[in-house]
């Protein structure tokens, strides 16, 4: 199938050519890590490993892992491999799961990242003549600027709307004729709901596609967004430690996200043993930033659980595909000794035909964990009788209990009452003091 590519010579390169490119980049990267990053030198020395031991990408398994704690322990700039003269930008993670981590970029890194983001926009059907409506937050968060540079690299027109003021966003979509929307999936839902409340028909807009990422979402949520906004919704993956949005994204086939593996080499490993897993088996996704200068992380543990697929894609790209992450090794909650993933709550709500606008509040009362699932009500769910609403709460509660094996109290909330920052909804509030 003929598709649109930004850099076809790389995106559609043969596996042999890719192997060559990856090997060459890895060898150079390892030398740089050993020379310029004390953490890596120390780790290599402890393992008795020399940079010369790494001769091709097949030797990657000999290398040590890098963890988020390595970035925290060397906060802010300790893992950087270039002098500050070569740095041109820093970003930082939101710090929602602990102390924030800082990432740095050289001019070359920004270019690599922009090319990857441009490939992603192109894979979703974007062209030079498109207006790219960017409603990711601009700032230390990588979302806004990552897509922005990608749009400009492609030659499209970036509309840097950033987050917030949703009515104005919709007005801009109408007036400027935005073609492609880029934001978090939860913000896309919010825009769609606001559009509906304003009485704006999504079919009257030029908007035809959306590229959504930076937080987990499900297939059902994709359908809901596609319905609310009358567009085709594409998944994009990225994390600041590796680059930002543009590490991987879907093509028009929408069967997994192609990883820009000439820049970011992926592995899936067993999180317990660290052993690599074959295609199709779920494990922790690990990236080696073979294309980066300022922050060349070796085998960075993303904590995202997913699997890889090296089979050829009909779109013509040869880049390996990753499945949408199923969860994270660290977002698992333990409630009364039972493992609970927020994504399970989302699936339950979607299976009941409800919008997944929810928040979990966990507490400990008389030494017992309690789970309250707060669900925003919408017009489709609302009824004028108390009985119907109580029936609905009970239905949600029963479905949750049978899926999670944990008793959950359901509380219905008014719409849009769960706070969204940078478009990301805060899903879990754990009030337990343990």
């Amino acid at each position, binding site marked *: 199938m003929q598709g649109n590519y930004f850099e076809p010579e790389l995106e559609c390169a043969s596996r042999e050519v890719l192997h060559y490119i990856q090997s060459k980049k890895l060898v150079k990267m390892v030398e740089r890590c050993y020379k310029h990053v004390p953490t890596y030198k120390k780790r290599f020395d402890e393992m008795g490993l020399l940079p010369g031991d790494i001769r091709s990408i097949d030797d990657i398994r000999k290398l040590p892992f890098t963890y988020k704690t390595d970035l925290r322990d060397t906060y802010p700039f300790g893992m950087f491999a270039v002098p500050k003269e070569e740095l041109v930008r820093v970003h930082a993670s939101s710090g929602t799961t602990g102390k924030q981590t800082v990432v740095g970029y050289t001019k070359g890194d920004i270019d690599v990242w922009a090319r990857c983001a441009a490939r992603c926009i192109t894979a979703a059907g974007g062209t030079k003549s498109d207006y790219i409506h960017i409603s990711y937050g601009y700032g230390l968060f990588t979302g806004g600027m990552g897509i922005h540079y990608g749009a400009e690299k492609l030659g499209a027109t970036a509309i840097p709307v950033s987050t917030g003021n949703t009515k104005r966003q919709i007005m801009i979509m109408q007036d400027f004729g935005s073609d492609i929307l880029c934001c978090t999936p939860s913000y896309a839902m919010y825009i769609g709901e606001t559009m509906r*409340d304003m009485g704006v028909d999504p079919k009257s807009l030029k908007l035809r596609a959306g590229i959504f990422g930076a937080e987990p979402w499900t297939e059902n949520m994709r359908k809901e967004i596609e319905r609310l906004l009358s567009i085709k919704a594409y998944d994009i993956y990225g994390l600041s430690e590796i680059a930002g949005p543009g590490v991987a994204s879907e093509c028009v086939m929408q069967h997994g996200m192609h990883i820009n593996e000439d820049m970011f080499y992926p592995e899936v490993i067993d999180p317990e043993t660290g052993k690599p897993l074959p295609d199709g088996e779920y494990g922790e996704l690990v990236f080696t930033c073979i294309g980066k200068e300022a922050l060349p992380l070796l085998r960075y543990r993303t904590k995202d659980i997913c699997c890889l697929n090296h089979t050829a894609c009909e779109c013509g790209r040869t880049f390996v595909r990753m499945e949408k992450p199923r969860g994270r090794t660290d977002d698992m909650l333990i409630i009364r000794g039972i493992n609970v993933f927020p994504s399970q709550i989302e699936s339950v709500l979607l299976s009941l035909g409800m919008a997944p606008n929810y928040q979990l509040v966990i507490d400990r009362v008389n030494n017992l964990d309690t789970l309250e699932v707060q669900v925003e*009500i*919408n*017009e489709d769910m*609302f*009824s*004028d*009788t*108390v*009985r119907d*609403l*109580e029936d609905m709460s009970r239905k949600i509660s029963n479905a949750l209990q049978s899926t999670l094996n944990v008793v959950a109290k359901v*509380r*219905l*909330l*008014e*719409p*849009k*009452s769960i706070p969204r920052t940078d478009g990301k909804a805060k899903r879990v509030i754990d009030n337990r003091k343990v």
Partner: protein
Amino acid sequence: MQIQQLSIFVENKSGRLAEITEVLAAARIDIRAISVADTSDFGILRLIVNKPDEAVAALKKAGLTVSLTNVIAMGIDDVPGAFSKAMRILADIGIDVEYMYAFISRKSGKAYVILRVKDSKKAVNALSSNGIQILTAEEFYGM
């Protein structure tokens, strides 16, 4: 024959009723009848207003969940036994009352009862054929 009632989902938060009715005040909407059904977590505010469509638009704009429900309004004499007589008529034809609220008018000497039943048409026929006044929307909104 049917009267449009606004139902609004209200979280149990202090000041919420004031905030919601301020939206109506700002839109110059006149409330004809009002009632709140409450549970421990949330409430449903039920309103009949003079301009239901405008009220719905204003409330939605304020981000509230609103739905319109058809209810019936009957006028009965404000004397002992009048209400029970009406309830007996409905009970005898097997109509259950989901909820109701009422107020009296000194001017007309009548009591007005808003009823939400599953089969409004059947209820209206039974009540009016037994001589009970059923108010039209215009009569009620313009009261």
